[in-house]
């Protein structure tokens, strides 16, 4: 009897990074084609949105490792995004470090600060942790605001960090005779990093550390008893998630070309942190590719609605194309949709878009005997 290529019979098969199935390979190929094709066919606006989606995805993968896999809720994610953004501003712009130096520096510094704060924060569990990390946002804003020699103070600072790797300058990309715009170059850079980060994160969760993280999530005391040091894994998860947040922050600074303290602290920072949490809820808590799916929804929706409102007359909304007075502004509509999105997903699809995808897959896998 021949067994199907996809059948898992050995432990090594179960651990494979890339599955053997034909569909999987076709899917990867399609993604690769999309990666090369999308920037050339999409409009500047669409590429800009996609770049932001990419930055959200990197940060959300980090948060998913912490919240989805280790079960620790952090509202301080925006602080680490801020750290990364300021590394891009300070080392990249002020000191002119090349991309391959300032980006790792962002990750390193984010990871170090995470590892330093982790032991304090992780003395607390669950809801206490959520609130103490909220404190991080306010203290962080204060530091960004007042450490003027590094951060440029409350007025913010310009970011023009170099984007060059060897002969490839992503800020001003030329391949042969084709010249790409800055946004197109950024798209190639950011989404390549998304792919690398996704691969690394997947590698992490499929091996011992990943299983340890999930053991800590499911029952930290029980994990401790079977020999998984919960302190060590909680702190590592915190550090890794901060690292990815800081990398995301670096890209945010580069997309925005300008950073200011209020974006990462206080109320706006809280909103940013909540956006990241919303991404993993919408995408799927505890599934890595869910973070990317969620980033598409949460990252693109507000921009798409803003764009829509300038072209279409939306009912009940003021400030859109029709210009009729409505009781909602476009901003209010966005915030409200965002709130409703979180509530609706938690109530009706708590495992997020990833669960929808799994259901669709299971339906076709067991076809024609699906039910």
């Amino acid at each position, binding site marked *: 009897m021949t067994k199907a290529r996809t059948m898992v019979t050995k432990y090594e098969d179960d651990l494979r990074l890339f599955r053997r199935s034909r569909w999987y390979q076709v899917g990867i190929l399609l993604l690769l084609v999309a990666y090369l094709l999308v920037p050339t066919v999409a409009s500047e606006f669409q590429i800009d949105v996609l770049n932001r989606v990419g930055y959200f995805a990197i940060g959300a993968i980090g948060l998913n490792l912490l919240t989805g896999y280790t079960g620790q809720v952090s509202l301080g994610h925006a602080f680490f995004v801020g750290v990364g953004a300021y590394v891009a501003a300070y080392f990249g712009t002020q000191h002119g470090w090349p991309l391959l130096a300032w980006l790792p520096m962002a990750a390193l510094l984010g990871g170090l600060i995470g590892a330093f704060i982790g032991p304090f924060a992780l003395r607390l569990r669950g809801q*206490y942790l*959520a609130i103490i990390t909220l404190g991080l946002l306010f203290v962080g804003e204060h530091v960004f605001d007042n450490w003027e020699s590094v951060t440029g103070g409350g007025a913010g600072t310009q970011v023009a960090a170099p984007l060059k790797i060897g002969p490839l300058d992503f800020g001003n990309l030329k391949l042969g005779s084709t010249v790409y715009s800055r946004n197109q170059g950024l798209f190639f850079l950011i989404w390549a990093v998304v792919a690398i980060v996704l691969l690394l994160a997947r590698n992490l969760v499929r091996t011992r550390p990943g299983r340890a993280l999930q053991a800590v999530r499911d*029952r930290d005391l029980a994990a401790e008893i079977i020999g998984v040091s919960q302190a060590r894994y909680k702190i590592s998860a915190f550090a890794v998630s901060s690292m990815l947040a800081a990398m995301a922050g670096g890209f945010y600074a580069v997309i925005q070309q300008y950073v200011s303290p209020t974006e990462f602290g206080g109320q706006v920072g809280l909103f940013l942190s909540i956006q990241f949490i919303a991404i993993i809820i919408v995408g799927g808590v505890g599934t890595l590719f869910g973070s990317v799916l969620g980033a598409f929804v949460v990252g693109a929706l507000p921009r798409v609605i803003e764009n829509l409102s300038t072209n279409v007359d939306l009912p009940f909304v003021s400030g859109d194309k029709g210009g009729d007075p409505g009781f909602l502004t476009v901003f209010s509509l966005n915030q409200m949709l965002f*709130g409703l999105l979180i509530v609706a997903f938690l109530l009706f699809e708590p495992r997020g878009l990833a669960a929808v995808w799994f259901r669709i897959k299971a339906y076709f896998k067991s076809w024609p005997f699906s039910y």
Partner: protein
Amino acid sequence: MSDFLQVTVQGIAAGSKYALVALGFVVIFKATGVINFAQGGFVLFGAYLAYNVGTTWGLPFVFAVVLAMVGGAIIGATVERVALRPMIGQPPFAAIMITIGVLFVLEQIVTSIWGFDTLNLGDPWGNDRIAAGDVTIAVRNLWSVGLAGAALLAFFLFFRYSNTGVAMRATALDPEAALAQGISPGRVYTLAWAVSGAVAALAGVTLASGSGQLSPGIGYVALAAFPAIILGGLDSPAGAVLGGLLIGVSQALTARYLADWSWLGTNFHTVMPYVLMVLILLVRPYGLFGTREVQRV
């Protein structure tokens, strides 16, 4: 010395407002184990409701406050029934996120109805002040302290002596055992949210009193009340009030006396509550009066 007293009194006044907000958090946490991030939305909603009744409809201020509290209670109960009830048995993370979602919706409802301008609540206190020795106190602040004290007393009596209060404590301790005694946990949860909504409305009124104090920004004061509840311990009403006062006083003192310490940076007092929270949590991870979590495998 009189300067110190003056600053302390101001701190106590601000602290009693935090305390009222914090009380609302504690009621819900005690009964349902959920930290309600939408509390700021309730505060906002209550304050604007009082404005609407008192100024727009022109009813006496007492009615405005009472109706705002009733409205707050209705909103609280509705939110619990619609959004939080399905979350029973889910991880606390999910419930927190639901309340955050509710916060976003509430804030936008409030600003869509009443706009973004700063308004006058229409309270009878205005900017009146009275002098006691060297210290001058705004009348509205005196009322805030009085209302916070009254609310705490009411909570104490309610939880100690009323049947409903005892039922709520029983449910908080062990929902199943309470169920076996004929208490409906569902009703207790709804009630807790209603009470919290009413207290939040009261907090909103004290926060917005005075001329030109009512703006959507007061919803964010609820964020400053987080350190207060953490300091006191999430499930202790007395702790919430003490935490609120501690935060208020330390903030006022920092603003007055540490302003010259330039290495702390400007406006250090805005982050003082959080610094204090971190310091206390390092020593006592469950707050000053919070119940220690016992873990069993």
